[in-house]
């Protein structure tokens, strides 16, 4: 099986500091892959390199067999690479339904047609509503996003990313800051992600990582320290020393 998202010797420096120092990562279709590592390991930089928010100093990013290294963010999303953000970055005055509708209309091409009526895009509206409902946001789908609870906004983040029907979904700390009473629905939402979507999640919450991940990559100082199944990673003495050991603090 060929990887749906792969990097080849990906590097990125800020001045003299090499934050990403030759990363080879491969995500198989339908994967549940976690990227972990201590603070400052370069996880965020790697995500930004994958999505196109940053350009690499060297190396390639390949999405579904196509070299996307030189493509901007929007073009990568159109080719099937979606992401969520660590900190909510939503559209405060749009309702969840409207926000998801924008993303759905982009995918179907309706967004490019200024002459169409929004009210006439019934297929898109229904799909957007389905997505919103699937994430338990139906009751609030008519309220401005800015008024939603934090956990609900996190769910909307994922719904927005899924609206593009991605092949690869990058979840950047999906559970960060979500209060306990809201996290159950988030967990079930993550568990219920479509099986044909490859999911790469960056997470500090080890419980979540070991619950969902089928493969784990450990990033330390911009390099891949280990990659393996959760059992292999949990049992690896070096990972324990470098990373899990710090988790106690």
């Amino acid at each position, binding site marked *: 099986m060929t990887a749906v998202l792969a990097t080849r010797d990906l590097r990125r420096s800020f001045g003299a500091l090499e934050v990403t120092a030759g990363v080879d990562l491969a995500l198989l279709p339908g994967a549940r892959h976690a990227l972990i590592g201590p603070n400052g390991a370069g996880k965020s930089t790697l995500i930004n390199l994958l999505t196109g928010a940053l350009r690499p100093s060297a190396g390639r990013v390949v999405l579904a067999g196509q070299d996307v290294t030189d493509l901007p963010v929007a073009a990568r*999303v159109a080719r099937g690479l979606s992401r969520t*953000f660590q900190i909510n970055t939503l*559209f*405060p005055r749009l309702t969840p339904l409207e926000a998801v509708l924008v993303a759905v*209309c982009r995918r179907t091409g309706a967004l490019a*047609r200024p002459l169409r009526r*929004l009210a006439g895009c019934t297929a*898109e509206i229904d799909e957007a509503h389905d997505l919103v409902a699937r994430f338990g946001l139906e009751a609030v789908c008519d309220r401005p996003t800015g008024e939603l609870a934090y956990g609900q906004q996190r769910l909307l983040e994922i719904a927005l990313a899924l609206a593009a029907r991605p092949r690869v979904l990058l979840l950047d700390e999906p559970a960060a800051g979500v209060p306990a009473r809201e996290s159950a629905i988030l967990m079930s939402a993550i568990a219920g992600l479509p099986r044909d979507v490859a999911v790469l999640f960056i997470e500090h919450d080890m419980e979540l990582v070991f619950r969902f991940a089928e493969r784990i990559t450990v990033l330390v100082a911009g390099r891949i320290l280990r990659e393996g199944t959760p059992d292999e990673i949990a049992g690896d003495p070096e990972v324990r020393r470098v990373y899990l050991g710090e988790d106690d603090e």
Partner: protein
Amino acid sequence: MTLAISMAEPRSRIAARGRWRWPETVFWLALAACYVIFPGHLQLLAQVMIAGLFALSLDLLLGFCGIASMGHAAFFGIGAYAAARLALAGWSEPLTGLVFAGAVAGLCGFACSFLIGRLRSIALLMVTMAIGLLLHEAANRLTWLTGGDDGLSGYDVAPVLGLFRFDLYGRTAFLYCLGVGFLVFLALRRFVHSPFGLGLEALRENERRVPALGIAVQRQVAVVFTLSAVVAGIAGGLLAQVTQSVALEVLSFERSAGVLIMLVLGGAGHLYGALIGAAVFIVARDVLSGLDPVYWYFWLGLILAAVVLIGRGGLLGLARRLPGRFR
């Protein structure tokens, strides 16, 4: 049954965004009724429509995309000069003249959009201001094209649709401006209620997040900036046709600032705010500079400060807050 309801509801929610409501009919009927009610002020009312159209073009940018421009008179002026030049060249049919004015302004807008799309906040304000001043300066220098300080005049404008001659009382002028204004308004209303329009609102709400939805921001900006320039150009063309002259003032910074004031005064992002703000502004200017033209500037400044410090959301925002939720 429940399924049918749950499917119909989101559709009607979205449809409600663009539904025509009765106050809108009242608004346009009232505007048309001005023809009978204020027969002595039709020239002024034509100016209101022109300014309203110009403010609409800025609303498209500021109200729907969050792109503020301090040099929007550039496109108004380009439209005015284009219409006047076409008339001077012997083509006096007004409607095609407007199309020409809009097209020339739109082309310039399209060219500018590549610069605009790269800039944010204060730099954006400065560059749009610089573009406006650049054009003002250019028009001042290129006397063979623009007549410089003297402006352009002495051209004929043929009767509208071959039937309605422009008269001294501004009857034709008002109806012409009202008609063009209404048609452009309908087109813009349709535009902002299209999927593309919703995408623009997303851009206004969070411009950094939009690319992550797979939307190419530069393309959005190019389309909307071009369209906005077309509408501004049509407004300028109307002015050139109705007054049968163009002065350098059409490109002035005061006009750019003025249209921003109208929009903020009326309330951005509703389309109607632009029209209401323009009406209040033009009438206020007529009254206040009638008292003493030198100090119009003072009132202008005071209005601006008041709008920012007191009247958030403009007159429309005020009207909405007063009687609770009036929808």
